């Protein structure tokens, strides 16, 4: 059992408020990822949970017990640091047994726990080495091993993979996912990498400027972002935003006229939208289809094409100088400066009001009702 509840948590450094009232519930066994741009407060939030950072106000509960003021040592949480933070003067075995020794466990228990962790993480042959004799990936594994041996209530990860090279990062990501399955533990993970967030999380918490923008499953956030920030932050390449004006509203949706003159009816709730107000249409790269320039009224000029083999990302400029990113098959052949036609899938378009808030989809509204 490890439920974590955070109530109205605030943290300031002098005049600057880093966390501006965080409310969050984390359930047992969940893999929760805090994601956001640098400086959004995600690490501070994690460190506040760990007890390494004093909070200015608010409360943190672990299994209904308040831990806001408790020393980190007494919280029964384990943390994996970005820099690994291994004890350089201790062997791998000692690094992993340190916490257990401090807790006064007997030698036999300690050894069996360390050996068990070493088996899970395949660290067996390295147990007598010092951290300086290990590679980055091995060090990261030791850092994880150090937290596993303790069987903590919650595992905290502070950007654990950002010091690894790309290939190793993918491998460790898979291992972490597997570890979460095997240990069936509650994990909180901080990253600025949205791929890590999407692939690892049961629940993603998107933070921006000290506030939670949205909490939900990766797919929920991907398909139903509540605002432009979340929509733009998740997804690779990013969602394109096209400014326009509302032309008419009806029961079947909102019709917007883009600055290029192209009209599109997006099936979203029209309750809060007035004709004539400014809106942004958001569309993901995979929901734009390139057609022949004569078969669509929406035309653009091909700017750059990035060939990745499996996909080709096309960056196109509409006639009114708006940039749109399009995902096309790997064998797409387009030439620089070529005029193409675009088709937007209205069912997949998002509509954001003047404040950047997403207007709920009609299908979605029906689901909720």
């Amino acid at each position, binding site marked *: 059992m490890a439920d974590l509840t955070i109530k109205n948590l605030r943290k300031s450094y002098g005049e600057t408020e880093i966390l501006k009232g965080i409310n969050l519930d984390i359930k047992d066994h969940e893999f929760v990822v805090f994601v956001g741009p640098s400086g959004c407060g995600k690490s501070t939030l994690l460190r506040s949970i760990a007890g390494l950072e004093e909070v200015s106000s608010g409360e943190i509960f672990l299994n209904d017990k308040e831990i806001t003021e408790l020393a980190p040592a007494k919280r029964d949480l*384990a943390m994996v640091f970005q820099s690994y933070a291994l*004890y350089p003067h201790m062997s791998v075995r000692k690094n992993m047994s340190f916490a257990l020794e*401090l807790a006064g466990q007997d030698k036999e228990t300690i050894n069996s726990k360390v050996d068990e962790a070493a088996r899970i993480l395949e660290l067996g042959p390295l147990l007598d080495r010092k951290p300086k004799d290990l590679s980055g990936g091995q060090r990261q594994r030791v850092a994880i091993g*150090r937290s596993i041996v303790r069987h903590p209530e919650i595992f905290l990860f502070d950007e654990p993979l950002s010091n690894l090279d790309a290939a190793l990062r993918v491998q460790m990501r898979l291992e972490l996912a597997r570890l979460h399955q095997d240990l069936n533990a509650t994990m909180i993970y901080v990253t600025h990498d949205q791929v890590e967030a999407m692939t690892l999380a049961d629940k993603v918490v998107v933070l921006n400027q000290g506030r939670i923008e949205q909490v939900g499953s990766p797919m929920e956030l991907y398909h139903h972002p509540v605002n432009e920030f979340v929509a733009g932050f998740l997804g690779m390449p990013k969602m394109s935003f096209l400014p326009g004006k509302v032309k008419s509203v009806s029961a079947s949706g909102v019709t917007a006229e883009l600055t290029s003159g192209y009209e599109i009816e997006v099936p979203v709730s029209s309750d809060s939208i007035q004709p004539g107000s400014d809106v942004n249409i958001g569309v993901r790269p995979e929901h734009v289809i390139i057609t022949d320039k004569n078969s669509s009224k929406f035309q653009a000029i091909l700017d750059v094409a990035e060939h990745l083999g499996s996909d080709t990302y096309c960056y196109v400029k509409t006639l009114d100088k708006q940039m749109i990113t399009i995902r096309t098959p790997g064998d797409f052949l387009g030439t620089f400066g070529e005029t193409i036609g675009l088709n937007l899938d209205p069912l997949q378009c998002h509509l954001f009001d003047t404040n950047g808030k997403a207007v709920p989809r009609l299908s979605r509204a029906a689901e909720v009702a």
Partner: protein
Amino acid sequence: MLSLKQRRRAQTVVLGTIAWLVALIIFFPIFWMILTSFKTEIDAFATPPQLFFTPTLENYTSINERSDYFHFAWNSVVVSFGSTIIGMLIAVPAAYSMAFFETKRTKSTLLWMLSTKMLPPVGVLVPIYLLFKDTGMLDTKLGLVIIYTLINLPIMVWMAYTYFKEIPKDILEAARMDGATLFQEIWKVLLPMSKGGLASTVLLSLILCWNEAFWSLNLTASQAAPLTALIASYSSPEGLFWAKLSAVSTLACAPILVFGWISQKQLVRGLSFGAVK
């Protein structure tokens, strides 16, 4: 035209010669002191100075007859180690809090501490003398230990601070997460990681204490007088005895010189103040 290799070689030779010359100049007084200590008083005064003479141990035996060398040496040992131990007990926690819980006034506090080293000690001689007199600490080892601890503390805190600064904060936080108390965090993680730097801090403190003369001359008479006071006693109203003075100086320098020799690697690292990682 010299090849690159030859030029490098020539450079090494020139630099090496300069280094040796500088080293010889620095070492010459010590060499002359040792040499003089084996001369008779007459040879010591001879003009021109004699490089070759019949060596004698007469000075060394006469020192032991006149005064108990080991009494003074023991005082030096007790006072140096005593004040170094107490100094470290204060400097480590102070540097720990300054390095890892820095506030906006930490830097100025450090500078202020160091600035006290820039004042002439003689300026506070009278008040300290009176304080020592009133508290009965004149000519006591405890008195010297206290005064040495105080005068070396700024440097010890500064050095320890510099070394602690090199240690990633994450590692201490990891220890905290692992359940370490403050004492365990310092004793089991911080100290082992900075033992090289702290060793040089200890060494420097020992050397500074051993060589200190101003306070030991002014605050001690016979009971607590260390070796520096013994040396000074040889330039006395009875006259200046160069050979004996050299002999006693050699005896006073010898222990710390040997000590420094053994630990020179640490010392060099210590004196570079952690500027080079």
